[in-house]
């Protein structure tokens, strides 16, 4: 199901750089230190892992639910296993990775809170990107249309959507507080994949950001130890 979401994002050709890479992936890439060990949970067809390997030289691993996605990744030479974020993260030891990435995955899990907690346990950092349900266009569709919204990024009808736990950027900030995650960096991307001005207040991010990308660490741990670059905005 994670795979399907990514395929649709790809098909929508939403917000790509001239090089063809998705800007939300580039926002993730920007948060990863070179040479790091990275686990991409819900890695789809492996595009992010490929980007990370090529541009950051990372030692990347992936978990993907869909069998087609996994087999495609392995045939590309990526280290990916077939597995479920909801059940299989529990098997990973503490601090096994420098970064654990949930790129467009969190909203498709059954238990986002538990997944997020595992992410912060397994990785010294977590990176989460998700579609912001608080975006003005989505609000408008519910307010005026009175129906569940459908956008380029979220093209499904409510009954066949793999995305079962939507949240807004504001909601996500609350969850981070609940699980004891510290937000080290945040980026909101608008409909064109441009990063919103870093000094904009939170409520504008929640209204104008179609996607949020967050770099997290456990509160009380010094996760910043020279690992993360200082870039705040996506290219």
């Amino acid at each position, binding site marked *: 199901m994670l795979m399907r979401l990514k395929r649709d994002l790809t098909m929508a050709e939403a917000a790509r750089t001239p090089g063809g890479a998705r800007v939300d992936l580039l926002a993730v890439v920007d948060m990863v230190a070179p040479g790091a060990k990275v686990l991409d949970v819900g890695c789809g067809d492996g595009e992010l892992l490929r980007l990370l390997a090529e541009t950051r030289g990372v*030692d990347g*691993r992936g978990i993907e639910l869909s*069998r087609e996605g*996994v*087999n495609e*990744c*392995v*045939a*590309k*030479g*990526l*280290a*990916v*296993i*077939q*597995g479920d974020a909801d059940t299989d993260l529990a*098997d*990973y*030891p503490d601090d*096994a990775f420098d970064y654990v990435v949930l790129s467009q995955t969190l909203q498709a899990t059954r238990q986002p809170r538990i997944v997020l907690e595992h992410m912060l346990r397994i990785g010294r950092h977590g990176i989460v990107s998700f579609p912001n349900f608080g975006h003005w266009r989505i609000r408008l569709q519910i307010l005026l249309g009175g129906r569940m919204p459908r956008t380029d990024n979220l093209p499904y009808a409510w009954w066949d959507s793999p995305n079962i736990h939507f949240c807004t950027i504001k909601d996500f900030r609350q969850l981070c507080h609940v699980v004891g995650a510290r937000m080290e960096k945040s980026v909101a991307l608008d409909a064109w994949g441009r990063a919103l001005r870093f000094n904009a207040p939170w409520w504008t991010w929640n209204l104008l950001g179609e996607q949020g990308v967050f770099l997290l660490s456990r509160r009380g741990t010094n996760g910043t130890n020279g690992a993360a670059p200082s870039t705040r905005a996506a290219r």
Partner: protein
Amino acid sequence: MVEADFSVALQPADRAREADTPHSLVVRFGMDKPLPLDAGIDLAPFQIGYQTYGTLNAERSNAVLICHALTGDQHVANLHPVTQKPGWWETMVGPGRPIDTERYFVICPNVLGACMGTTGPASTNPKTGKPWGLDFPVITIRDMVRAQAMLLDHLGIASLFSMAGGSMGGMQVLQWCASYPQRVFSALPIAASTRHSAQNIAFHEVGRQAVMADPEWRHGRYFAEGTNPQRGLAVARMGNHITYLSDAALHRKFGRRFQDRDNPTFSFDADFQVESYLRHQGSSFVERFDANSYLYLTRAMDYFDLAADYDGVLAQAFKGTPTRFCVISFTSDWLFPTSESRAIVHALNAGGARVSFAEIVTDKGHDAFLLEEPELFAIVRGFLEGAAKARGLPPARG
């Protein structure tokens, strides 16, 4: 006929010749190079029959070790000297194949305890001048791997680029990675497990009892007594062969169709196609395999429990391993089900290994690893491609 006719042209004495002087390469280790066995015995002298394909590069960095399964042998990708059939993995190994012999130097040894040129119960015991029979020590997967390591030493190969094997071959791959992690750059355990399950031990016991119940078995001394326990071995093979397939595959291939007849004969003749097929499997197996070897190799598989060597913690077997793994299972394999492969993957993850895992959808059961499975080929090819890049091997030609 009511009883199946398993009589074959090739007699045990012919096979004994293949065991001592095989139609393949062979390396003989003398009294000065004994093989220490888990049973506490030093086996010496002993020999390993093996085949190679392709060319070892100057850096000696492109060697791939293939480990065969219970009833396989070293003839991976050449005409079989006994059956005159194609090699058992010709779809996987060869020029331009996923394990490309134009790029890699492929080695496949016959396993210890088998009967195609590596020392086993059909080989001549140098002390008596007669076949070992049941005097041959009981061997383990670890013993097989130890012998293979001696072969690699002999060939001057310090580190393997990769190794691959299905079923019992996969067990050897896993044992290699635990015993000699620094010697294995990448590994493909396919349809494998780190321990033989109770159900699998049970199937093997049925097979062994079938062999031993054959009056011609003579407590393993059939060579000396001029008999041939082909019925017992054929029945063992028939029983095991069912476990290599799946209900769906049997139904697809045979259904309830009759064999060369329109109606049942109201006898115990092979009315059904599936019966005829199994009888054929039985008789073609006894032609090329030694009954005592069957006992020893099934025993070695039964004894295999990798975690037991590491206080029951499988992850310890792979802790800090530098090997890149690609674990593969098949949806309809009920002998080595996906759950077994998942247990390997969990242990590898816990040990921090670089691991890929793919489950392939097929109705062909455990045998799928030997069959035409395009997805399997694509995954093996892609995995080796990635590993070759990491190893610094030159890319494939045109």
